[in-house]
């Protein structure tokens, strides 16, 4: 069982890492953000599988914290896209 869980953990991690190609290719910023989001949830799944395979229970607490934090990056991205802070883009840069 442990071997299967180890192998699946590696498979999921490799799969979502492949998804990072979308960050390189874009084209929209939202596409890049989505690849990061997929890496987040895939990383959580890989971490849980690894913890179950190795018998480390504390990994569950770690995943709980990670999934809580997963939302913040995207929320910050959307806040910036919708209304850039005045320091980042001057009035002359506005469309």
């Amino acid at each position: 069982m442990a071997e299967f869980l180890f192998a699946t953990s590696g498979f999921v991690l490799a799969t979502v890492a492949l998804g990072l190609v979308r960050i390189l290719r874009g084209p929209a910023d939202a596409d890049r953000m989505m690849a990061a989001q997929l890496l987040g949830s895939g990383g959580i799944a890989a971490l849980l599988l690894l913890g179950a395979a190795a018998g480390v229970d504390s990994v569950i607490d770690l995943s709980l914290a990670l999934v809580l934090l997963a939302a913040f990056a995207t929320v910050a991205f959307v806040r910036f896209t919708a209304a850039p802070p005045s320091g980042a883009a001057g009035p002359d840069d506005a469309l």
Partner: protein
Amino acid sequence: MSAALDLFTVVAVAAGAFFFLAGTVGLLRFPDVFTHLHALSKADNLGLGLVVLGLLPQANGLLAGLKLVAIWLLALLVGAVVSQLIARAARRAGPRA
């Protein structure tokens, strides 16, 4: 009984890994932002959900199982909110982005 639970774990975890694969392929192959979002939410909700479901029989005790379920519920909530936010941002940015 133990063999049946192990079989359940193998089937559910393999199905979850399949959804992660499908989500990644969709993210790479689909044409625009909104279809990417569709692929991403499949991987987020079903992939992580099936992995958690498969790991439930392997959990040590009730508390660990409840935490696993909490991870999935949080992921569902985050996925729903984030999908709405990304879709709205992409729609505002218009077809040029």
